[in-house]
């Protein structure tokens, strides 16, 4: 797909995600109590609040923030796993960037999910069908994108598993019996099945041993180098963000409190909360 590099591949504007109906006391997020994303009157949680950012081709954007800051909600909205409350997102290679993808029909959203995006969940139980073979998990994505030839499916699945360093001999085994690191790598290969230009990774390395973590991080960097896939890497671990991301967005209580080049944020954090995060890393 030919794409003007100066134009963002994905632009998200004013994305708001709220759990609950909202009330007069929280009709404007500014009305929420300082340092909270929770309306004391109606109990509504404002998981993402007016988030805007751009993602460029081949870039890795980091999203960092404490537990409950809305990181997962954000990527789940982008992958259409949950509906948004407000906002827009445009993909430059989808209808020439003219369509707000949140407004598309569910069939079109499925097309976007299968062709333009890949998602890797923190919990592999959500991203994988544990009772189906690893090859089958990849096959499902390929089938969804219109490949109905078993030979072709298996050739592509082999290629993908080999790429993430899963022995091809284990292709017909269920990921249920794989180690955590292997499960994440199967998830990554599944997410990459249809060469999506955008990959969303939610805490891919959380809960893995350090040595296993390092292998997964290496893999992500290799994918970026080889295929120029744009990625959003969600993590509450600044170490992971520092290793992978060109630019970073810091979230707190559903808001973006700071954004910029990762190096700059690490060297000269502006927001007090970011300073705290950075200092705890050192």
């Amino acid at each position, binding site marked *: 797909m030919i794409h003007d590099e100066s134009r963002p591949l994905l632009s998200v504007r004013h994305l708001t995600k709220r759990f609950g109906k909202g009330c007069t006391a929280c009709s404007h997020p500014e009305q929420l109590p300082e340092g909270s994303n929770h309306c004391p009157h109606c109990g509504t949680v404002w998981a993402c609040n007016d988030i805007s950012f751009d993602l460029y081709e081949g870039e890795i954007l980091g999203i960092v923030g404490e537990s409950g800051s809305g990181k997962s909600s954000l990527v789940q909205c982008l992958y259409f796993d949950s509906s948004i409350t407000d906002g827009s997102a445009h993909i430059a290679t989808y209808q020439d960037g003219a369509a707000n993808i949140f407004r598309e029909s*569910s*069939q079109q959203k*499925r097309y976007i999910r299968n062709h333009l995006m890949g998602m890797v969940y923190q919990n592999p139980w959500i991203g994988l*069908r544990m009772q*189906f*073979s690893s*090859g*089958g998990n990849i*096959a*499902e*994505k390929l*089938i*969804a994108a219109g490949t*109905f*030839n*078993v*030979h072709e*499916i298996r050739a592509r699945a082999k290629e993908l598993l080999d790429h993430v360093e899963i022995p091809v001999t284990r292709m*017909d085994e269920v990921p249920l019996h794989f180690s955590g690191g292997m499960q994440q790598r199967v998830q990554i290969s599944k997410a990459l099945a249809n060469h999506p230009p955008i990959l969303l990774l939610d805490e891919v390395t959380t809960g893995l041993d350090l040595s296993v973590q390092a292998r997964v991080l290496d893999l992500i960097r290799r994918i970026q180098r080889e295929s120029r896939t744009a990625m959003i890497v969600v993590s509450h671990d600044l170490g992971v963000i520092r290793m992978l991301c060109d630019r970073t967005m810091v979230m707190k209580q559903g808001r973006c409190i700071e954004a910029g080049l990762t190096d700059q944020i690490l060297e000269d954090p502006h927001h007090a909360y970011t300073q705290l995060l950075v200092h705890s890393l050192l």
Partner: protein
Amino acid sequence: MQPHLKQTYNYAFLDEGSKKEIRRTTLKAVAIPGYQVPFASREMPIGRGWGTGGLQLTLSLIGDQDCLKVIDQGNDDSVNAVSIKKLVQSCTEAEVTTDSERATLIQTRHRIPEVPIRADQILIFQVPLPEPLRMVEAKERKTKQLHAEMDYSGIWLRLYEDIVKWGKISIGADYPALAHKRHIFAPSPIPRYDLPKLNHADGLFLFGAGREKKIYAIPPYTDIEPLAFDDYPFETEHFDGCNCRLCGSSDTFLDEIFDEKTGQKFYQCSDTGNCRKRQEKRHTP
């Protein structure tokens, strides 16, 4: 006793309102080939799971000018087929037959007659499990959404896994197919041999699931494509070198039968009505 009994039932057993609702549901089903339309399945004097869905369709359509054939796995004389015919005869003046070519309505379980259905005939299937996606998704709300979004990769994945494990797709009867390039449907447990008969047929096929409260249809001249991978094409059962021991046929669906005394294996037409006609032809040249 018989005339007295007739007066206690409404014509064709169901009240007129129920029949009307079933016919309306049927029209909707015909309009969207393969789509399962919910309906208020009635209590019938036979147990659910014994053909109540098919029976309600039959009763909602039948009139005195109709001629009804009922078969169970191809057989006109099975206990089920006989009791359904008796019930229909007790509340209508419709004629019954074993000759599929004479029938205007044919209610069936697990088979399609050998002689192709004509434009003036309706074939009514008794359906135990109308949802083809149930094997991959347990929740009704989810399967409805999968159909709505034409999200069929789950069932395809199931077929892929079959091929990986067994070298072929292991589904025999009730083989899922795509209707009108839109909805995947369950053809009811007919053998694969019968599935191609649904493709671009002259007649109308109706499917009734009493327990699951669903009606669906395959109207005439609808595209029916059994799910299959490009390199693992759909195959029907074949009976190479076998003949029916009664009519000698080698081009019909044959049942395998064991003689308990001799332990011998032989073949016999599953469509008994057709077999009988062939035997008669053979004996009266």
